[in-house]
């Protein structure tokens, strides 16, 4: 997987859901293009240091939803035509993560302008080529604990 994601213990969502949503986001954003190979359950479980059953549950749900396709003996791939997330789902997810960031910025006493400027700077940094960045965090997760 070109883009990485992290598991956050302070996130109230179960780990399998964090994995499921991160993969969905990577597919929706095009970071994982149609028919791209995704890591095996074993590989991703080791990489994230989580129980393989947790990764398998996320993959199973993604396969059921038509996002991933399992080819027996061959591995797991992004579906040839993965379902696009609706504008509504996309907006909902952005709002959820924005709430986390906004609450965090507010506890620091940051103004809207300051918070927005920090977001814009991070955004530009992520657009730079890898190796040139300060932070390797994927585009899926921003902000801090509330």
């Amino acid at each position, binding site marked *: 997987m070109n883009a990485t994601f992290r598991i956050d*213990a302070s996130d*109230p969502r*179960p*780990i399998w859901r964090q994995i499921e949503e991160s993969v969905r986001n990577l597919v929706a954003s095009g970071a994982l293009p149609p028919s791209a190979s995704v890591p095996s359950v074993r590989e991703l479980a080791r990489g994230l*240091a989580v*129980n393989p059953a947790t990764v398998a549950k996320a993959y199973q749900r993604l396969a059921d939803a038509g996002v991933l396709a399992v080819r027996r*003996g061959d591995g*797991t791939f992004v579906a040839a035509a993965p379902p696009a997330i609706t504008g509504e789902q996309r907006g909902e997810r952005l709002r959820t993560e924005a709430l986390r960031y906004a609450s965090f910025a507010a506890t620091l006493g940051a103004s809207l302008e300051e918070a927005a400027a920090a977001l814009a700077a991070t955004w530009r940094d992520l657009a730079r080529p890898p190796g040139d960045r300060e932070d390797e965090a994927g585009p899926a997760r921003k902000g801090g604990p509330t």
Partner: protein
Amino acid sequence: MSLTAVSVSTIAGSISPKVPAAAFTNAHAGAAAASPGAAARIAAWPLAAEAITVRYGRRNAVDGVSLSLPEGAVYALLGRNGAGKSSLVRCLLGQQRATAGRALLFGRDAWRHRATLMAQVGVVPEQPDAPPGVTARQLARLCRPLYPCWDGSGFEARLRRFDVPADRPFGRLSKGQQGHVALALALAPHPRLLILDDPTLGLDAVARRAFFEELIGDLADRGTTVLLTTHDLAAVERIADRAGILAGGRLLLDEEIERLKQRFRHIWLPSPTPGADAALDALSPRGRVRRNWRVETLVENFDEERFQAFQASPSGAGAEASPLTLEEIFVALTGEGSRQLAPGAEGDPR
């Protein structure tokens, strides 16, 4: 399950038939008692403790503990030092006879059938111990005849991945390397059940990570059932699917970690109003209420709807609910001040 790399569908297939949480919460008091058939099924699970009590003099080190692990479970047994973990683990390994109750492995009494049962169980002890002059490779040769099957090439491959020299005497290996040798020895006979007693104690972060990666690989390949005691709660949170917390020899809780994390919340109130405490009571808080610069309380059975109603009330304005990590839940339940968490206890204003 096949020993080679497992495809997603096989893994997923082995998970779905997993026993639903309700079926093995207090299995012995609830589901098992309800039907003799269910009791027999649970008794044949890889591991079951049936009302185990261990008494030393007049003190109960373990006090009527029942728990059971279905096939493929990864169970973390947590507790502070002296909570009774070691005594319980010794009973489960057939090394110690319970004062009352019994330990069953694959449905057979661990104390009476220790020799035969141990051939199916991989153990990583708290302090890996071996004669200091014996190398890892020689240890494998010593252990091999004790088991019906022995994966010698898997053992060597693990040592290579761990970067442990197979021909260096055990006494000259680092603590991390000794722990890695213990895991490689425990996995070589392809055990159906692994019992890991604080296996990463004293290991540095890199050695710990390597240890858990190897364990995760085995879980993926063989769906091994695991009982793990540890103080590494961050690892437990990711790897275990269920946790039991021992305190004073009793099992405080025995629950799926996902559910545990769903029901605990810290509630923060930025500027307490005179009616805030009474309003908070509507959320049935368990635990301390601090009145420093804000009110903080712990809710054990968080309900989103009730919390939203509280937020909408005048005293709940600005209230925030934040989830707890497993470590925070553990500290809240077993740390100082945890007595106030006993059911029925009042919040203690400070």
